[in-house]
């Protein structure tokens, strides 16, 4: 199996803080990977580096064998990677359908002008994350945290990524909502979507991943099956030491 995403010795410093400290890992095509670690371990930073929202100080990031570190964010998305945000960031004045519409847009001014939006496709994506039809007209300010997370997922799925980076998709959700999103991810996984998922909800994570990488202070401390990683001595002490 070929690796879809490969990070090699990636370093990112914020002033004196080393948020990513020579981290290397890979994700194979069709694989799902859990990225776990205590608060401040550097999980979100890695997503920002992969998306090009921050640039690493050194190290390489390859997608489909191609170095993407020099590309701006929108180009990386066109190459097949997209992320959700730990803190949902919807377009506040647009309804759910409008938010999904932006996610679906082609990066081509001419097509944006001449081809109209596709309400059916918007509806399909909205339903796939568990929205009801009447939710399409609701504004972000009227949505619960669960709905905002669904909207994040919908907007990200709209870009049709090969690999999705999911940051704390379960935080602030009810048990029912966690189940709903888990089902959706299980479904997408079956359809062949590759993803990296970050979550503090280890129980929800376990059935959703093939493999896990644990990290603290910007370094990987364990890698393997989810069970192996959870049993690892270093991982246990990192979590307890939190």
């Amino acid at each position: 199996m070929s690796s879809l995403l490969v990070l090699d010795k990636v370093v990112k410093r914020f002033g004196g803080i080393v948020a990513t400290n020579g981290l290397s890992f890979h994700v194979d095509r069709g694989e799902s990977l859990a990225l776990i670690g205590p608060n401040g371990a550097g999980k979100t930073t890695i997503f920002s580096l992969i998306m090009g929202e921050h640039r690493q100080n050194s190290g390489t990031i390859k997608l489909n064998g191609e170095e993407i570190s020099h590309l701006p964010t929108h180009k990386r998305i066109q190459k097949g990677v997209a992320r959700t945000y730990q803190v949902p960031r919807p377009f506040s004045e647009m309804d759910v359908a409008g938010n999904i519409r932006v996610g679906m847009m082609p990066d081509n001014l001419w097509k944006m002008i001449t081809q109209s939006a596709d309400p059916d496709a918007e509806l399909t994506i909205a339903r796939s994350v568990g929205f009801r039809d009447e939710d399409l007209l609701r504004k972000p300010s009227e949505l619960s945290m669960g709905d905002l997370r669904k909207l994040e997922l919908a907007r990200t799925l709209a870009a049709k990524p090969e690999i999705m980076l999911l940051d704390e998709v379960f935080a602030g959700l009810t048990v029912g909502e966690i189940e709903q999103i888990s089902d959706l991810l299980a479904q997408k996984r079956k359809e062949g979507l590759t993803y990296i998922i970050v979550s503090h909800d280890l129980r929800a994570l376990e059935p959703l991943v093939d493999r896990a990488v644990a990290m603290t202070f910007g370094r990987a401390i364990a890698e393997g099956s989810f069970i192996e990683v959870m049993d690892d001595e270093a991982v246990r002490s990192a979590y307890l030491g939190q």
Partner: protein
Amino acid sequence: MARPLLGWAIFAVAMLLLPQFVSNGTLRIIIFANFLAIFAMSWDFISGKTGYISFGHPFLIGIGAYTSAILSYRFGMPVSLSIPLAVLATMVGGTLFFLPALRIKGTYFALVTLAFMELMYQLVQVIRPDLTGGTRGISGIKTILSGAAPNFYLSFGLMFAIGLALWLLSRTRLGTALDAISMNEEAVSGSGLNTTRLKLFAFMVSALVAGLGGAFYVHYLGSIAPRALFDINFVFTIIVSVLIGGSATIIGPIMGAFFMTFLLEYLRPLLPGSERYLVYGMIALVLYVYQPKGIMQILKNLSLRTRGPQTGRSGNV
């Protein structure tokens, strides 16, 4: 879609009949309103839509006005050539105007655009005053038409064509993407869209409109002077027109421009001095506080109240 288009058609017919019913004096006022509406729409397409607030729009308007004035007055070029060249020059200027938007946002961007306007004001007076006329400006510039009614039709036709085009453009997905930039630019890149290209496009469209407006305006007035053009009061009149009309709506700025022009005109006999600007500022402020989304929203609410709420999915106006 059909109902708003009917609205545009009714607006056009009503305006075209207007010269039958009102005095030439009123027509002259409306001509100013038409030009202010053009400038306000130009501003709205950058600042209302993408949220990059321009305090220096007269920079763009000035390039259009001066280029056409100089080409026709100094070099005897026909207006049919000088205006297109002026628009081109404005779009080149729009590219310069765009450069700071690559790096800075918010207040900083607004201040830099203000600096553009001040710089232009100084340059016009210092560099080649033999061309620009320096501080005194140029008068005796060729006018395109004479008489109130013909100029009313010309300015209205221009304003209407620009308004309809911008309104249609802002209803496409491109308009949605520009709106999205004002809400969360990072998330627009995060949706795979090149925000630099989107912003550049918005700036080019805005410059095109400002250039057209500036060039036609100077050939209506027949004269140009830097102090009146590169003036912060002019900037505020444009911005306030958009805000009280309803920003990012294109139609709002047209209504705002008419409202502002007539307000200033009716205040004139009561308050001949510059206190007028104080009163108009206060009226605008009260209106803005009452409904931050402007006259557009007030009218929408009224129509909802009288007709009952609309059902079904509809785009933003």
